[in-house]
C-alpha cells in the first residue's frame, strides 16, 4: 500500500544531524503526549489509540475521483487532532507513521523522527489549535476553520519537508519549495473537503464525541497560541523561503560553515552555500498567488456548501 503523498521521507535523504534533531524533538513531544493521554484517558487509551491509528491507516485508502484519472486522498492528521485532541492525535500519528515505515518501507527509520514531526506533531498543533480557537462559535465557522486547518496542515507538512531536504543538501530550495507546495496546495483541498464532510457526519450522528471532555482534552490557550503561531509561521515562511533562498545560506557562508562543510570528514550542514543568485522570482510569485487564490476559493466553496447543508 503506497501512501498517497510523497511526504514520507525515505532514509538516505536527510543528514544524520537533521535526523537526530528531529528525532530529539519528536521523542520529547511523544513523551509528553504519553503522559498527557494517560492522565486524560486512563486504561482506555490503549485500545482507543490503537484502533484510531488503524482508522487513520484505513482512511488513507479512501479516495475520490477528481478528474482525468487522478483522485483525491485523505491523510487524517487534522481530523484526528480535532476529534481526539492534540496529544492523542500525536500518539496515533506516531503509530501510523511507525508502521508505515516498518511494515511498508514508506518513510525511513532514521528519517522517522522528521516524518513524525512533519505529519503528526505539526498537523496536530495546527488542526487542534485553530479548531480550538473557535470552539464556542457557530457550526459553520467551526467547520470552515476545520477545513482551513486541514488544508494548512498538509501545506505546512509539505513546506517543512522541503526545508528539511534543503537543509540536508538533498535539494535546491528554489525548486523543491514551489514544487512541493504546488502539489500539496491541491492535495490539501481534498483533505479539507473530506475533513469537513467527516466532521459534519460525526456531528450529526455522535455529537457527544466532539464535545467530550475526556477525549478531546480541552487544553488551555496554549494550543490556540501554538496552532496560530505555527500556521502563521507556515504561511509567512513559504514566500520568504522562496523569495530569499539565499538568506540562510549567506549566513552560513559568513560564519564560515562553507569552508567547514567542505573540509570536514562529514559535513555539518552541507550546501550552506550561495546558490545561483537572483534565481526564481517568478516561480515563487506564482506559488504565492496560487496559494492565495486557493485559500479564497476554498473559503468561497465552503461557504456555499455550508449554506446548502444548513438549509
Amino acid at each position, binding site marked *: 500500500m503506497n501512501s498517497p503523498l510523497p511526504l514520507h521521507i525515505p532514509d538516505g535523504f536527510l543528514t544524520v544531524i537533521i535526523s537526530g534533531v528531529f528525532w530529539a524533538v519528536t521523542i520529547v513531544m511523544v513523551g509528553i503526549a504519553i503522559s498527557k493521554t494517560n492522565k486524560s484517558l486512563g486504561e482506555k487509551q490503549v485500545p482507543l489509540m490503537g484502533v484510531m491509528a488503524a482508522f487513520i491507516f484505513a482512511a488513507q485508502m479512501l479516495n475520490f475521483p477528481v478528474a482525468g484519472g487522478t483522485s483525491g486522498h485523505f491523510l487524517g492528521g487534522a481530523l484526528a487532532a480535532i476529534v481526539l485532541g492534540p496529544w492523542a492525535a500525536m500518539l496515533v500519528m506516531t503509530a501510523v507513521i511507525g508502521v508505515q515505515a516498518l511494515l511498508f518501507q514508506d518513510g525511513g527509520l532514521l528519517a522517522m523522527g522528521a516524518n513524525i514531526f512533519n505529519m503528526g506533531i505539526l498537523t496536530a498543533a495546527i488542526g487542534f489549535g485553530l479548531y480550538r480557537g473557535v470552539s464556542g462559535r457557530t457550526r459553520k465557522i467551526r467547520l470552515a476553520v476545520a477545513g482551513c486547518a486541514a488544508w494548512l496542515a498538509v501545506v505546512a507538512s509539505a513546506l517543512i519537508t522541503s526545508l528539511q531536504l534543503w537543509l540536508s543538501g538533498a535539494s535546491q530550495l528554489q525548486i523543491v519549495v514551489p514544487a512541493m507546495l504546488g502539489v500539496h496546495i491541491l492535495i490539501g483541498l481534498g483533505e479539507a473537503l473530506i475533513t469537513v464532510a467527516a466532521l*459534519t*457526519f460525526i456531528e*450529526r*450522528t*455522535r455529537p457527544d464525541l466532539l464535545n467530550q471532555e475526556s477525549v478531546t482534552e480541552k487544553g488551555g490557550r496554549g494550543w490556540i497560541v501554538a496552532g496560530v503561531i505555527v500556521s502563521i509561521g507556515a504561511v509567512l515562511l513559504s514566500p520568504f523561503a522562496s523569495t530569499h533562498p539565499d538568506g540562510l545560506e549567506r549566513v552560513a557562508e559568513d560564519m564560515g560553515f562553507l569552508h567547514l562543510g567542505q573540509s570536514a570528514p562529514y559535513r555539518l550542514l552541507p550546501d550552506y552555500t550561495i546558490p545561483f543568485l537572483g534565481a526564481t522570482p517568478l516561480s515563487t510569485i506564482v506559488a504565492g498567488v496560487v496559494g492565495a487564490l486557493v485559500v479564497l476559493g476554498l473559503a468561497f466553496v465552503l461557504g456555499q456548501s455550508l449554506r446548502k447543508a444548513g438549509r
Partner: protein
Amino acid sequence: MPVVHPREPIPILDCEGDVLQVRGLHFSYPDGHAALRGVSLKLCEGDKAALVGPNGAGKSTLMLHLNGILEGRGEIEVGGMRLTRGNLPAIRSLVGLVFQNPDDQLFSPTVFEDVAFGPLHMGLPEDEVRGRVDEALESVQMSAYKERLSHHLSMGEKKRIAIATVLSMRPSLLVLDEPSAGLDPRARRTLIHLLRDLPITMLVSTHDLTLVRELFPRTIVMDEGRIVADGLTMEILDDVQLLEAHGLEKP
C-alpha cells in the same frame, strides 16, 4: 407458508437467460487464490434463485462480478448487454447488489441520502430522485424512516434500508448476499415477506436453507468456485448426498 413448488419439473435450465447470462467465468484474487473456476449461469425474467454453498465457495465473489466490481475471465451479459468497462455505469443501473452486512452498504448519515445516492449518481433530476426514494422506501415499508440516521437503526431496519438503496435505482436484477444473517426470527420473517412480494428477478446467496425452501423455487449450489448443482429447490434439498458433500444440511 412455504411456497408451493410445482410437482413436475419446470424447464428452468432451458431459459434464454434474458436477464443474466454468465459463461465460463474464471477469477483469481491477487494473492493467487482461484475463487471462480468456470461458472456458467442463466437467469430469466421473474426467476428467484437461491445460491448456496459452504463458506469460501465463491458465492460473494460471483456476485461481485455481476455488476463489474471484480473483473474475471469469461463473459457476462446483463439484459442482453455485454459487460465491458465502457458500459459499467449502465450495467450498474441494471444490477442492484446488496451486501451481506448493511453497515457496508449504508455510508451516508441519513436514510434519505443513502437511498438517494444511486439515483443522484445516475444524474437524474431532483424531483425524479425524490420520487424514487419515496417509492423505494415505500416498498420496504420504511417511509417513516426517511430522516432517521442510519447509524441508529436496528439490524433488521438497516437490512431493509439497504435493499431500498438499490431498489431506488430500479434494477432489473436484484442480487442479495446473505440477507437473513444476524436477523432475529421476526425480522427474518418480515424479510421473507418483503422478498416474496418484490416483483423483481433475484439471485440470493444464503446459508439459511429453511429460507431457501420457503422462498425460492430454484436453487444453485456452488462449491470450490464451481456450480455443482442447479435445479428445483425441492429436488436439491431432498438430495441428502449432494448436501452432505457440500457442507450443507437438510433443513
